[in-house]
């Protein structure tokens, strides 16, 4: 026979548990409503439906140091620089997936991509131009504010890729993994942006010697087909 005081204690504790559960649920609901009220859901731009297109990604493999071209159906922005940034972000994201052949940490990698028409002209010859005095080669591009020679229509472009510092800091260190990442980026740009001929890298907006201790980031890279295992590959037409 259970003593009376124990039965009273049991039911009292049970009631207390139920009350605490109800209090917790109510607290969660109130917190969610509070967050929802603070969220600004004012529409800023009309939604745009972008159709998916087939893009070529140059995917690297650490196992044999190869780069293979694969096709992906991706919906990307129509503006060229935003398109390049989104495509490279997607490329790096592929490496953070489970089972990646070239594993990289997930997180933001590409901050921005700037496209400059070639040929670049000496910094002294322009006013209102983009330049970086710390780079081994001055970067100067037309902004339409001077009367100097304008780039010929259809000429090549230089892509300046600004990488997040956190991505570079956490990138696997080594000649092979760093070179594969750069070759993967160059191969992907070559396959999808025929006007891009050269690439330079910045990290958090500043020149940096290496990606993670090995691959040179101060040079100007020439965009080319970096795939090592694929059928003869033709880049996208303009």
């Amino acid at each position, binding site marked *: 026979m259970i003593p009376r005081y124990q039965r009273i204690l049991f039911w009292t504790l049970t009631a207390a548990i139920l009350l605490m559960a109800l209090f917790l649920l109510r607290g969660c609901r109130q917190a969610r409503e509070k967050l929802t009220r603070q969220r600004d859901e004012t529409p800023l731009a009309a939604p745009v439906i972008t159709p998916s297109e087939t893009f070529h990604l140059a995917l690297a493999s*650490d*196992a*044999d*140091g190869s780069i293979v071209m694969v096709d992906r159906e991706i919906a990307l922005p129509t503006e060229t620089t935003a398109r390049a940034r989104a495509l490279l972000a997607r490329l790096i994201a592929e490496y953070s997936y489970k089972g990646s052949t070239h594993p990289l940490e997930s997180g933001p990698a590409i901050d921005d991509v700037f496209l400059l028409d070639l040929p670049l002209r000496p910094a002294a010859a322009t006013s209102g131009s983009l330049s970086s005095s710390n780079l*081994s080669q001055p970067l100067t591009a037309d902004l339409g504010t001077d009367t100097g020679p304008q780039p010929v229509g259809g000429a090549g472009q230089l892509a300046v890729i600004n990488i997040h510092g956190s991505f570079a800091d956490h990138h*696997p*260190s*080594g*000649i*092979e*993994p760093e*070179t594969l990442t*750069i070759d993967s980026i160059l191969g992907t740009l070559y396959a999808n942006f025929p006007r891009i001929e050269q690439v330079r890298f910045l990290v958090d907006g500043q020149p940096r*010697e*290496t990606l*993670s*201790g*090995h*691959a*040179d980031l101060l*040079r100007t*890279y020439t965009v080319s087909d970096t795939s090592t295992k694929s059928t003869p590959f033709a880049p996208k037409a303009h």
Partner: protein
Amino acid sequence: MNSSSKRAALLSALLATAAAVALLGHAQSTPAPAPPTAPLTDRNLIVLDPAHGGPDNGAILPGLGPEKDVTLTLANRLRAALTSAGFAVVSTRENDPPVALSADQRADIVNRAHPLACILLHATATGSGVHIYTSTLPAPNPQAANPEDTSPPFTPIPWDEAQAGFIPQSLALASSLTAAFADANLPAFSGRVPLRPLDNLTCPAVAIELAPLPVAGEDPTSVGDPAYQQRIAATLATALRASRDHPGPPFLAAPGTPR
């Protein structure tokens, strides 16, 4: 003007004409200054560059610590093997200095030594086997060696492209090392990479990156394994000795470079 004055003036004019003709002939017979050439290579000298050092740790290898320690250990083993093979060895660092040399300073050490070859040593935890890398710079244009070429005899070499003239030699060196590793049953892969100070070296140069050695049915052998490192060192020393002792030129010659 009297007759003696006329004779003196005529004699002076003849002497001046003769002197001018003589000077002109001398100027035409003097050979043009030869273009500067690279100093002779010391076929008995190897330069080792254990990558990183000081505050630059390089990669952090799981279970082994910083890459700079692994490359230094490998350099010490390779130095012993090369010395046994009769080579003189210069290293860009022999310990872990508090302040690391820059890539340009390391290239400066190598370029002043004029070695038979320069070996840059790296280590990684990814991939497998031995990675042998050469510079991504393009090989020099064969037209530069054409005697009918009318371009100036000497053009300055940009620092960032100093290795370009030695690309054929570096590729031949990489090829001979790849074959030597194959003979030693060590998997080796070769490629071309954007790596400093590889592009700034004026000698045959390769970067050797040591990766774990795959073993069938077992865990890969770590890059810090003494026996693995010793096999690498012995193979490199054997290949370099074979190149040095070869009766002909050790590697393909860069255009215009004496051996």
